[in-house]
């Protein structure tokens, strides 16, 4: 009884056959076996990379160029949106600067029929997938919650309650599989979000149901001010996959080619009945949590600078230039294109949205209840009174 059985995997721990000769026959245990071989579920030993590795040679130049343009536009979108907060045109913006490789790869890797489940920080991923940028930003401008039609873009609403979008992705993927559709759901979540119960439940349902869903954790080092070390003691977040019986992958989140490769493989596995995958992308949030946050309260400039230097855009640019796939002219063209996008966005965001206060009562239910009718009449009367006093119509500018 005093013999130690240390928690490390060691041969002494394997149950040896009972030495039955000199004792009363013991009952035999019913058969038991592991449900899945754990070895293939274990993630990469370090973040998988493509750029600057031999794997780069095999990468499709056209894809890399497309991702480059996406990255440049993505960065520009981030800087533009942040600028809009300073101009009072956005109430708040949680920037994904530094994480653009994850954001644009997540959008680029999906087929048209697939679904994206973004979290509140992922407006860029939504935009990169095709959502009209103004529609994507209404939430943060404050004029409407979800400004786009999720079915038009197959992009679920940006989810603010952390990790709650993950079971939605599992359910949608499961429903699609039931209906026989070749649809995969890709769900985004932050490192902080992995601590929520909903993360756990979604991962488990996905694995048990073998749902065609891929989880991409953008581990950007922080949940607002809380560093990863206070969030998790796991070897890596990708190791969580093992406990659900799904493969975990670890990828360099600043290497857009690597993120694309790993997601592409995971999607393919999901499509062919192989079930879900958990991908952890190691990256960094170089901006503050939002424009309202003061990141100097909780992290050193040095750390930020090291990550700014390992910039996803520069990383790909260097690789493309090194392979002769990109020259100054193309760089300028891509930059100009991004500048155009930003200018259009700026301009469109420059006008105040016209809102109808009576919309408060729209779409609470398919049909308004008597109670809401009554309340709508009250507001209508108030607006009429205001309008009467001001000599204007009830419709009005929101600001």
């Amino acid at each position, binding site marked *: 009884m005093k013999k130690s059985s240390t928690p490390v995997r060691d041969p002494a721990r394997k149950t040896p056959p009972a030495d039955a000769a000199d004792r009363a026959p013991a009952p035999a245990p019913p058969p038991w076996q592991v449900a899945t071989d754990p070895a293939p579920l274990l993630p990469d030993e370090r973040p998988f990379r493509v750029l600057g590795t031999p794997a780069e040679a095999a990468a499709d130049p056209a894809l890399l160029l497309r991702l480059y343009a996406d990255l440049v536009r993505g960065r520009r979108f981030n800087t533009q949106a942040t600028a809009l907060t300073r101009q009072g045109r956005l109430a708040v913006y949680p920037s994904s600067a530094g994480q653009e490789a994850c954001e644009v790869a997540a959008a680029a890797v999906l087929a048209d029929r697939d679904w994206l489940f973004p979290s509140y920080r992922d407006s860029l991923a939504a935009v990169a997938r095709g959502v009209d940028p103004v529609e994507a930003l209404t939430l943060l401008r404050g004029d*409407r*919650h*979800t400004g786009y*039609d*999720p*079915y038009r873009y197959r992009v*679920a*609403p940006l989810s603010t*309650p952390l990790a*709650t979008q*993950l*079971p*939605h*992705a*599992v*359910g*949608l*993927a*499961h*429903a*699609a599989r*039931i*209906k026989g559709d070749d649809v995969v*759901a890709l769900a985004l979540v932050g490192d902080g979000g992995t601590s929520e*119960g*909903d993360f*756990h*439940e*979604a991962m*488990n*349902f996905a694995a*048990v149901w073998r749902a065609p869903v891929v989880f991409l954790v953008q581990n950007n080092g922080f949940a607002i001010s809380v560093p990863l070390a206070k969030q998790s003691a796991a070897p890596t977040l990708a190791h969580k996959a093992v406990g659900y019986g799904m493969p975990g992958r670890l990828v360099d989140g600043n290497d857009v080619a690597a993120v694309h490769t790993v997601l592409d493989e995971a999607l393919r596995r999901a499509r062919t009945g192989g079930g879900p995958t958990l991908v952890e992308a190691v990256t960094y949030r170089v901006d503050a949590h939002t424009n309202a946050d003061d990141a100097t309260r909780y992290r050193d400039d040095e750390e930020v600078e090291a990550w700014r230097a390992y910039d996803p855009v520069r990383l790909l640019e260097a690789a493309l230039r090194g392979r002769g796939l990109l020259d100054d002219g193309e760089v300028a063209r891509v930059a100009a294109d991004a500048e155009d996008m930003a200018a259009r966005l700026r301009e469109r965001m420059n006008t105040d949205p016209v809102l109808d206060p009576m919309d408060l009562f*729209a*779409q*609470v*239910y*398919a049909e308004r*209840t*008597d*109670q809401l009718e009554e309340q709508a009449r009250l507001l209508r009367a108030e607006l009429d009174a205001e309008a009467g006093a001001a000599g204007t119509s009830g419709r009005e500018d929101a600001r």
Partner: protein
Amino acid sequence: MTTVAQRPGAKPATMAQALQRALRDAMAEDPAVHVMGEDVGTLGGVFRITDGLAAEFGDERCTDTPLAEAGILGTAVGMAMYGLRPVVEMQFDAFAYPSFEQLVSHVAKMRNRTGGAMPMPLTIRIPYGGGIGGVEHHSDSSEAYYMATPGLHVYTPATVEDAYGMLRAAIASDDPVVFLEPKRLYWSKAPWSPDAPAAVEPAGRAVVRRPGSSATLITYGPSLPVCLEAAEAARAEGWDLEVVDLRSLVPFDDETVVRSVRRTGRAVVVHESTGFGGPGGEIAARVSERCFHHLEAPVLRVAGFDIPYPPPMQERHHLPGVDRVLDAVARLQWEAES
């Protein structure tokens, strides 16, 4: 107010049977209807409401989920996003709480936050209330939480026929319905004709279960039988009580309730949920406001006490019974009138 006519050819059936039949008919009619929850498949649910559905429609239409209520409701949201009509079973009232965030922040708001693009045709069945001798956490009356959450419908049947008709209406609804099943009425029996069962139309309306002229008892779900019994007993005291079964807490049928109370001039709200902050506050407040000039006495409330649900051996002291209802009726300032 909707009147529910007794159908011909009715045989005795339990509420549990009617609910099961409603699920089966809904699944047969619409392949989008999926039942899911803990033990709903092979076992047929701990109350056997889903008995036989997995055998008839397969595991994928009636699914034993992992044991995780937020996951159940959260995946149901995703399924609804893809055009299915999930019918979720929560095993007991208190075990729905882990799914509260999904319910409040997504199920209730999804239609609104997407400007109508993404409705949530979900039904969440929750066996609720006490009176069955359950251990702690098995007898909560949680309707106040759901009533306070805009975006949800909240139905609760009190009769066998309604159990069928309202569940069909809930499943047919394009909005999420929290469907509260009074546990202690599962085995209540009534004549019912399962040959031509129909959805309650329109849903969301109250019904006068017993006409009367002296005062109105406003109730729902598990307390309806108590009120009907109290109304019978009240005859001996010379009171002719009207009993209104709300059936739907959201939307609320002001019209039926107000019409009754304006006529009787007195009202008692009866439910087993705790009183303070419970459904009765809302109901009494709206009745008091809308019937102000017709009231001969304050609207009274008879409710469960403001305590955690007690152990089974004590529950009868907690639950509003016939005597407690009659005591309240007696306090309706009858002298004031005469």
